[in-house]
C-alpha cells in the first residue's frame, strides 16, 4: 500500500516511470492513481432543459495523449470536459476510464486534475496551501506527512517555475503565474488525467504562446492523458496530438492537426480551422462549373447538383486572364496579410465574394483590376 501512495520524487523527470507505474497498479479501486488512462466517450447526450448541449458525442482518447476539444462558444466543448471530470453528468451515454465505468464515480473518486478557466484558486490560501490542498484533504490514513507534503509542493513549484512564490496570495500573482499555480495544484494529486478549460483564455498573446510551449513540455515530461478545451484553432494545432472539432453539440471531426487542416471533413471544420473562401459550383461532365462556365478543374466521383468549392486563400495559382476555365473576379480591396497581399474579389455576375492571397509584388492586381486564378488545393462539399 505504501508503494502505491508514495510520491515518486522523479515522477515528472523520468521517462521510464511507466514501468514503475505498472508495478504500482493492482490494488482495488485505487489501482489507477497517477497512471495515465485511456478514455472512451460513447454517445454522450447532455441536455439543459430543452436545449441539447451534447447530441451523442463519441471519442476515444489514448493513454498519455494530448487532445484538444476545439469549437466555437456554445458548441458543447466545456460541457464534455465537465462530464469527463464528473462536475456534470450526461443524460445518456457512457464514459469509461481504462475500461472502468467513470459515470459511477464521484468527482472526488475520479481523481482528475481540473484546471478552471478562471483558475479558481483559493483566495484565502497562499500559493503553498493551494498546491498542497489536494494532499491535505486526504483522509488521515492516506495523507502524506507534513514534511513530505512540503517536499512535493516545492518540487511542483519548481516544475511550474514558481519557486520562491509559495507565500504569496493568488491575488498577488500575474495571470500567467496563477495559471501555473492552478496547474501545479491539479498535478499535486497525481491525477489519472488532466483536464484544462480554456487554459490560456485570459492571458495576453505573448504569455499565451510561452505557456503553450511550456504546457506541451510538461505534458511530455509527465505523460498524463490531457484534454483541453479551446476556441483558438492556432492553439489547438500547435499544442495537441489530436483535435476534436465540436459544433452545435456534435463532433464534426477528430484527427491530427495536419488531418484536420488538410482534409477537413465538413465545411464547418474547413472554415473553423484556418481561413477559407467558398464558391457555389455545379458539376457537368466531370468538370466544375461556376455560373455556367466550366472551370479547369476535373472531379472524378462528384455527381450533379450544387456544391461548395472551398479553398484556403493562400492555396491559389494566378492564371492569365484570357486563358478561360478560371475563376475571374474584380479586386474590390487589398491589404497586407502576413507575407502576402490579400485581395478581396468579386466574382461573376452573382458577385460572389472570395479572398485570395498573392505575392505582394504581383502586378495588375490592384483595386479595380480583374484577376484570374484557380485554387491549387480545394475541397468540394455538398451544398
Amino acid at each position: 500500500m505504501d508503494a502505491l501512495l508514495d510520491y515518486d520524487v522523479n515522477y515528472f523527470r523520468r521517462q521510464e516511470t511507466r514501468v514503475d507505474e505498472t508495478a504500482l497498479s493492482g490494488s482495488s479501486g485505487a489501482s489507477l492513481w497517477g497512471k495515465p488512462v485511456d478514455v472512451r466517450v460513447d454517445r454522450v447526450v447532455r441536455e439543459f432543459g430543452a436545449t441539447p448541449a451534447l447530441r451523442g458525442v463519441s471519442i476515444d482518447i489514448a493513454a498519455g495523449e494530448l487532445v484538444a476539444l476545439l469549437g466555437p462558444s456554445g458548441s458543447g466543448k466545456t460541457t464534455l470536459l465537465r462530464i469527463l471530470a464528473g462536475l456534470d453528468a450526461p443524460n445518456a451515454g457512457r464514459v469509461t476510464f481504462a475500461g472502468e465505468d467513470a459515470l459511477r464515480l464521484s468527482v472526488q473518486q475520479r481523481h482528475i486534475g481540473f484546471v478552471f478557466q478562471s483558475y479558481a484558486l483559493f483566495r484565502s490560501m497562499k500559493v503553498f496551501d493551494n498546491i498542497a490542498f489536494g494532499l491535505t484533504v486526504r483522509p488521515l490514513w492516506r495523507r502524506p506527512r507534513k514534511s513530505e507534503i512540503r517536499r512535493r509542493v516545492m518540487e511542483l513549484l519548481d516544475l511550474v517555475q514558481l519557486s520562491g512564490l509559495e507565500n504569496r496570495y493568488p491575488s498577488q500573482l500575474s495571470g500567467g503565474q496563477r495559471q501555473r499555480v492552478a496547474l501545479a495544484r491539479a498535478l499535486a494529486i497525481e491525477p489519472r488525467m488532466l483536464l484544462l478549460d480554456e487554459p490560456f483564455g485570459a492571458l495576453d498573446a505573448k504569455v499565451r504562446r510561452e505557456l503553450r510551449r511550456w504546457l506541451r513540455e510538461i505534458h511530455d515530461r509527465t505523460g498524463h492523458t490531457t484534454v483541453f478545451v479551446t476556441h483558438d484553432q492556432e492553439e489547438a494545432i500547435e499544442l495537441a496530438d489530436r483535435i476534436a472539432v465540436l459544433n452545435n453539440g456534435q463532433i464534426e471531426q477528430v484527427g491530427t492537426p495536419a488531418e484536420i487542416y488538410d482534409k477537413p471533413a465538413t465545411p464547418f471544420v474547413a472554415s473553423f480551422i484556418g481561413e477559407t473562401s467558398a464558391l457555389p459550383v455545379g458539376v457537368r461532365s466531370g468538370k466544375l462549373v461556376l455560373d455556367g462556365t466550366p472551370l479547369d478543374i476535373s472531379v472524378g466521383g462528384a455527381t450533379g447538383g450544387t456544391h461548395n468549392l472551398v479553398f484556403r486563400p493562400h492555396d491559389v495559382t494566378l492564371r492569365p486572364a484570357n486563358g478561360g476555365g478560371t475563376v475571374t473576379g474584380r479586386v474590390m480591396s487589398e491589404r497586407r496579410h502576413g507575407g502576402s497581399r490579400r485581395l478581396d474579389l468579386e466574382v461573376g455576375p452573382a458577385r460572389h465574394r472570395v479572398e485570395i492571397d498573392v505575392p505582394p509584388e504581383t502586378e495588375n492586381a490592384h483595386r479595380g483590376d480583374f484577376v484570374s486564378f484557380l485554387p491549387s488545393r480545394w475541397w468540394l462539399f455538398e451544398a
Partner: protein
Amino acid sequence: MADVAISPPAVHRPVTTEPRAARIVLIAVAVLFLAFFLLLPLVVVFVEALGAGIGTYWKALVDKDALAAIRLTLLVAAIAVPANLVFGVAASWLIAKFEFRGKSVLTTLIDLPFSVSPVTSGLIYVLVFGAQGLLGPWLAAHGVKIIFAVPGIVLATIFVTFPFVARELIPIMQDQGTEDEEAAASLGAHGLTTFFRVTLPNIKWALLYGVLLCNARAMGEFGAVSVVSGKIRGQTNTMPLQVEILYNEYSYVAAFAVASLLALLALVTLAVKSFLEWRYAGELAAQRRH
C-alpha cells in the same frame, strides 16, 4: 522641420473632482451632520451618566435589577447570535450555491424581519404563543411559558436579527460562484471539508461583519422585546427595557448609566471591527483584489 513649441497644457482638473468651494461645502455639511446627529448624542449619554459623579454611576450599574438586565441581555445575545450565525450561513449557502424552486420566496422571507415593524413581530409571537394565542392553551397545559418569559424574548430577538448575517453573506457568496467548491471537489475534498476549508474562509470577513451587526442589534432590540417581555423587573427586562423604565421613573442618572453601557458596547463593536481590519489589512486587500 519647424520648431514647434510645445505649450504647457491648460490647468487640467481630473474629471471626477469638484471645485474647491464645492468640496469644502460638501465636507462641512457631512461633518456637521455627523457631529450633530451621531457624536453629540453619544457624548450626552456619557455626560449625563457621569454627571452625578463616578460613585453614583457605579451604584446605578451594580443595582440588582440593572445587573439582572445586563445578564439577560448577554444571555439573549449569546443564544440569538449563534443561532442566526448558523441559520444565516445555511440560508445563504443554499441561496448562493444551489438552484431550486422557491428560491426567490426564500430570499424574500429572509428580508421579512427588516420590512416588518419590530412591534408587529413581537405581537405575532404574543398571538401565537400567548395565553389567548394559537398555541397558548396547549403550552399552558404543558407548563411551558414563552410569552412574558425569557424564551419569548429570545424568539423575538432571533426573528428581528435574522437577516443580518444572511444579508451580508448572500451577495458575496453569489459573487464568488461555485468554481472554488468544484475545484476543491476535483482535488478530492468532500462536502464538509470544502465548506470549512474553502467556502467559510472565502466569506469570513463578511461573516464577521454580519455577526457584529447582528450582535449589536440583538443587544439593543427594543420594540419586539418590549411586547413579549412583560417588563418584569429583575426577570424579563433587558437593558433597553431597563433604560426606558428608569427614564420613565425620572431616574435619569440610572437610565443614562445603563444606556452608557449599551453605547459602550456599540463602541467596542466598532473598535473590534476596526482593529481586525487594521490587523488583517494586507490579507483583506489581497482577497478583495482577487
